[in-house]
């Protein structure tokens, strides 16, 4: 069957409809012995005879009892009384979802306070990251700060140095926007070669939320900032690390940069900067200063620690690129992805995420043969500027090895590079800003592996 002919969703006849009576009998007998390979071959034989459109096994073959016990035996939840309202004042995910956790990558850091935890992208849907699964990056630990005592200051090249309370900031006209945040070091460990097994560890320093707050421009206007000579802004955190980063005024005057307190309909989570953080769309996460306490307007850049020691991209020849802030166009298939096992041959929905620090995603192509042939994926709505976009593509796996890749293009026309293209200009020691096309090898045994192709 040609994969290109598949465009619609999963519509399949029930398996018994394209099995011969003899086949059904054999399936029952073999099914009892747990030999699913045999089931598959029985289906294949049936399909060859009947020319049915789908020749693959289903994950839920008809049991020998004549019906699924999950249907035939009504469970407790169908025959009893459930729990009352407000048992959980703040609802939690199902206990069956406990495998979805943000996780540390073993051996990456020595302490938990200067470390990172990765979001479980392999199990997420759509474009919004649940706030409790948002990736974390702390430089000196996180805090839960009393919002009534938090203050925000603007000083430097302004008519008047000013101080704001949360009450005051939350009174101002607000905006709510979806944006991705990606650590500049996302996918860093794979610059030279494959180093980690799953998309959680390769791409999990990536999240997307709806942020609510006040455009920084509004606050700068209130303070009478010198927009002509004040070409740079310093953002500073109020925690121990007192993170500082330089932001160009041109990005702020565009209205994009937000002093945010809201995240996905509630306040920011403490791990994400409660009660106030800077949102700098399209720019690497380190600039989204958490526990934001101060903005200074100046005429020169600041060469903060994370602009002059870390977050500089080493180039071949020994020169570092400084002030590399934009997260360029990138994408990754989240299913099937490394460390997963496909249940069987047959239909799959290849799904993944695409994003660009320069605007909207224009298109995503997906290859299942390691980049030789590509098909255009469906971009699901909404497709928003500097936010994650979700793509999907129908795929029928024939059980043979397949190398799955995605390639995104943003609205500037820029196309996500391959590893050879990226390494040709930046070498392999750059650490930051690895936006290369990711490859996942689906093996005959169904296991998916993180690989790189030459």
């Amino acid at each position, binding site marked *: 069957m040609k994969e290109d002919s598949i465009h619609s969703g999963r519509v399949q006849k029930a398996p018994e409809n394209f099995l011969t009576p003899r086949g059904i009998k054999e399936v029952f007998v073999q099914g009892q012995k*747990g030999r*699913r*390979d045999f089931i598959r071959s029985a289906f294949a034989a049936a399909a060859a005879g009947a020319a049915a459109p789908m020749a693959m096994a289903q994950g839920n073959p008809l049991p020998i009892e004549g019906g699924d016990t999950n249907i035939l035996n009504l469970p407790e939840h169908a025959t009893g009384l459930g729990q009352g309202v407000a048992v959980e004042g703040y609802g939690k995910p199902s206990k069956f*979802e406990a*495998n*979805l956790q943000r996780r540390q990558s*073993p051996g990456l850091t020595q*302490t*938990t*306070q*200067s470390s990172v935890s990765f979001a479980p992208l*392999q199990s997420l849907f759509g474009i919004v990251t649940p706030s409790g699964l948002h990736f974390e990056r702390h430089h*000196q630990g996180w805090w839960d700060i009393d919002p009534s005592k938090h203050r925000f200051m603007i000083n430097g090249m302004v008519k008047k140095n*000013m*101080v704001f309370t949360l009450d005051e900031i939350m009174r101002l006209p607000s905006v709510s926007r979806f944006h991705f945040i990606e650590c500049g070091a996302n996918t860093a460990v794979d610059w030279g070669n494959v180093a*980690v*097994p*799953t998309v*959680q560890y390769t791409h999990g320093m990536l999240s997307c939320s709806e942020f609510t707050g006040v455009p920084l421009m509004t606050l700068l206007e*209130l303070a*009478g900032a010198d927009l002509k000579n004040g070409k*740079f802004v310093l953002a500073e955190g109020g925690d*121990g*690390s*007192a993170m500082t980063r330089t932001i*160009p*005024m*041109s990005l702020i005057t565009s209205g994009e940069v937000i002093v945010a307190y809201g995240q996905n309909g509630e306040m920011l989570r403490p791990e994400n900067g409660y009660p106030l953080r800077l949102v700098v769309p399209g*720019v690497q996460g380190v600039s989204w200063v958490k526990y934001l306490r101060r903005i200074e307007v100046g005429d*020169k*850049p*600041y*060469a*903060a*620690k994370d602009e002059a*020691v870390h977050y500089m991209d080493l*180039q071949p020849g*020994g020169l*570092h*690129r*400084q*002030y590399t802030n*934009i997260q360029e166009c990138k994408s990754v298939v989240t*299913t099937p992805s490394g460390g*997963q*096992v496909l*249940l069987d041959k047959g239909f799959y929905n290849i799904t993944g995420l695409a994003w660009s*620090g320069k605007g909207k995603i224009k298109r995503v*192509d997906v290859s299942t043969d*390691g980049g*030789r042939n590509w098909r255009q994926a469906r971009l699901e709505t909404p497709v928003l500027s500097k936010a994650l976009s979700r793509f999907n593509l129908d795929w029928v796996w024939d059980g043979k090895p397949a*190398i799955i890749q995605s390639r995104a293009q943003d609205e500037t026309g820029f196309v996500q590079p391959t590893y050879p293209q990226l390494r040709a*200009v930046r070498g392999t020691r750059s650490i930051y800003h690895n936006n290369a096309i990711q490859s996942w*090898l689906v093996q005959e*045994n*169904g*296991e*998916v592996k993180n690989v790189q*192709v*030459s």
Partner: protein
Amino acid sequence: MSRFRNAVVTAALLGLAGLAMAQSPNYPGVGRGATPKEVAKWDIDVRPDFKGLPAGSGSVAKGQDVWEAKCAHCHGVFGESNEVFSPLVGGTSAEDIKTGRVANLSRSDYPGRTTLMKVPTLSTLWDYINRAMPWTNPKTLTTEEVYAVTAFLLNLANVVPDDFVLSDKNMAQVQARMPNRNGVTTQHAMWPGNEFGGTAKPDTANTICMKDCKPEAKVASFLPDFARNAHGNLQEQNRIVGQQRGADTTKPEPKAGMVVASAAPVVVAKLDNSEAKAAMALLNKYSCTACHGIDKKIVGPGFNEVAKKQAGKADYLVSKIRAGGVGVYGQIPMPPQSLPEADAKQIAEWISKGAGK
């Protein structure tokens, strides 16, 4: 709003027009002027041109004392430690100080990149030590101590001599000796503005090809078999329903045939040991975990190691926590910890009972 009304009244009475009138007419009642005292307390940044640098000085000798008391337990006596953070010093040469380019950065076989190999600007060191060090007690160094520690680091890298006193008067001269001062460029397409005069053109230019694009892909890199379970059991890191499962990495990969994914749901058991939970919350609160892992050595011994050695000795552990010590597990000293006795006791009891999760 009474506060707003008070402000207007006060301004009118005292003629402090600035207080009320500097506010934008669009948003009356929002924000107030910051006092010079407030700005002085928070505006601590130091720029590469040394704007913001407070007057003062500190010697290499003083820096060594501060270093050994407050810095060495994480960074090593000579800034060489790789235990907690990357080494600060090493990899630079006298030639680098002359050229302003660290030669080892161009060597792909050079094993690491120390802070002194990378940092082009002296202000960055001063600013960062001042705002964020020591790691567990940031912003507690005096101005003299910041100058002194900076001087000591520079001395370790042979940028300044042993008898040097670093001050606001000579920072610019020392900047001219920074080993990697000429080692950075802003000429790239990844700054979101034109302030640095970089390029707008990205450095890669992939194109959209759809058919027969390149020779068949060959797998060039993958994880070795021994790393299969290095990130924990991946089966327990994937949802228990859906179009896939996580691979059971506690078992070797099946070499032939299709894996029949386990139909039985695998959900990781959640921590439910309230005594351990409470102790671990305290360990985080007092930053004990910065130096001690629960079950691994960091700078100091892992709690599991302490538990093995000091089983049942809660009182002894309380005294050691509060008094500090050296020599029991190694030569890196643990400074005295100033936490309430009750909290120290709770931690000590948890350790003495085995430091279980």
